[in-house]
């Protein structure tokens, strides 16, 4: 039995309010704990597997349909052909899976009540939030990059039959693939922030989906006044970051610059993680 921890420091006696000291600094143990939590639940692996299968299958089939019809395609179609966009055709399913994973990482703890046990082991809630974000973000970034590279290689392997493939060393290709992985992690972390904010799986998934995919309805509604809201959509940021050929026509008006796209991703992350952290510091 360890000796009772007697810390009768006078300054701490009134510290019933959450302490600010070392707010988000996490220990290795906390990170290990979150890793065990993520790893020990089957739905984590099922979700990632689903993402991989759908993204690969859609990407490969879409690429296949292009290579098969290439000889009969019109010149205009050939000109607008983007070898990466075809391979990444199923990426939205992957994004959905990552977002759901991020939501579940926290919402289930609230729904089961496990969060109370977590907080009694680590009473500083900011640290719990940070540890989860670091581990979740790390896992999703790794998985996202792996998914993006595997899909890229698969797609290019199919395109190489018609010599339509591009290499990682070609201009913009590496950035596009890496940004796809990054984007998957960002979507996952937005899901995580929303899960912490809403504490309810169904609600958080719905809002996450609306924020990422349905907001175009809102921005298109005001398009006749300004294209600025269009450029602030997450999907527009991803379009800019993932395409090798710049877009044309109306799509170009809706696309932000590369720098802006990165800034937008960062701001989305900040806002949603900030909201989640704020809510988590409130009573469970």
């Amino acid at each position: 039995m360890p000796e009772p921890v007697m810390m009768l420091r006078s300054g701490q006696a009134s510290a019933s309010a959450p302490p600010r000291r070392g707010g988000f600094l996490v220990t290795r143990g906390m990170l290990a704990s979150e890793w065990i939590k993520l790893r020990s639940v089957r739905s984590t692996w099922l979700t990632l597997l689903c993402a991989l299968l759908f993204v690969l299958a859609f990407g490969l089939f879409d690429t296949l349909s292009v290579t098969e019809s290439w000889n009969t395609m019109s010149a205009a179609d050939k000109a607008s052909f983007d070898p990466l966009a075809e391979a990444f055709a199923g990426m939205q399913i992957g994004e959905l899976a990552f977002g759901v994973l991020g939501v579940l990482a926290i919402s289930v703890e609230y729904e089961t009540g496990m969060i109370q046990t977590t907080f009694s082991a680590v009473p500083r809630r900011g640290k719990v939030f940070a540890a989860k974000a670091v581990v979740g973000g790390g896992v999703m970034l790794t998985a996202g990059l792996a998914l993006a590279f595997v899909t890229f290689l698969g797609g290019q392997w199919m395109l190489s039959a018609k010599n339509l493939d591009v290499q990682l060393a070609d201009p913009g290709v590496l950035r596009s693939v890496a940004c796809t992985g990054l984007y998957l992690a960002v979507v996952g972390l937005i899901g995580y922030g929303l899960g912490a904010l809403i504490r309810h799986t169904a609600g958080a998934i719905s809002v996450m989906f609306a924020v990422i995919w349905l907001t175009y309805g809102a921005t298109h509604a005001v398009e006749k006044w300004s294209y600025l809201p269009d450029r602030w959509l997450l999907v527009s940021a991803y379009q800019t970051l993932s395409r090798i050929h710049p877009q044309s026509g109306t799509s170009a008006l809706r696309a932000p610059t590369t720098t802006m796209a990165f800034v937008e991703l960062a701001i989305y992350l900040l806002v949603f993680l900030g909201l989640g952290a704020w809510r988590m510091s409130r009573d469970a």
Partner: protein
Amino acid sequence: MTAQSSLPQRGVLRSFLPGRGVLRSEWIKLRSVRSTYLSVLFATLVAVVLGVLATSSDASNWATMTAQDKAQFDPLGDSFIGLIFGELAFGVLGVLAISTEYRTGMIRATFSAVPQRGRVYAAKALVVGVVSLVLGMLLVFGSFFLGQAMLSSKHLEVHLGDPGVLRVVLSAGLYLFVVTMIGFGLGAILRHSAGAIAALVAMLWLAYPIGRVLDHLSYLPSRILLFNIADAITRTHAATGKPALRIPSLELAYSSLALYLVVFLALGAWRISRDA
């Protein structure tokens, strides 16, 4: 028919006939969960506001629009631009109507009160269906009238009496109903909110790559995607160019919609008769 054999074999239809008590119980369940109607209410608000925004931007920018933009102008489409949020909320409502009972274990209490599971399912489906149909119609007619009022300042509005308009407005409401019931079926099949909602939104919005993959063989898969069905039944002008090939005819659209409804409700009914 003997008493022993009558339980499982009694007419399939009869085992799905809910009594008034079961119906009322399901109505109370749906009504008493605040999050359900709050989310639907919120989505309705968003949908109506976006419709008003889109149509008022049309009206205020009409003078400076290009001839091409004017030709593509769709007075109905713009007042329905926010309906996607309605679809999401209605679909989620359908999922939650059943999945939460499984998550909380409430379903066991429900089944011990009414052991004929088919009746529980039918009662739930009926209540959720009627509620979504009524709310859906309110939403689309509200969006329609507000949107047209915005357009009337530039005399761009259409009227219910104009050809096809009433059908389109009704179809938009019907679509909300079908989406709700697909969500309901998915909730019964998967018994898990997160999975069912993810599957629903993937089907509604993210499935188009499936169609595109098969486009060079046949446009039929594209045409029976919910996304394109919705497009077909809520459109007043015919589409042009490549997208037009993916949009089904009205007959195909309505019959596939009915097929979706039947398939998902039937799968849910089959699944609910399995052990909870």
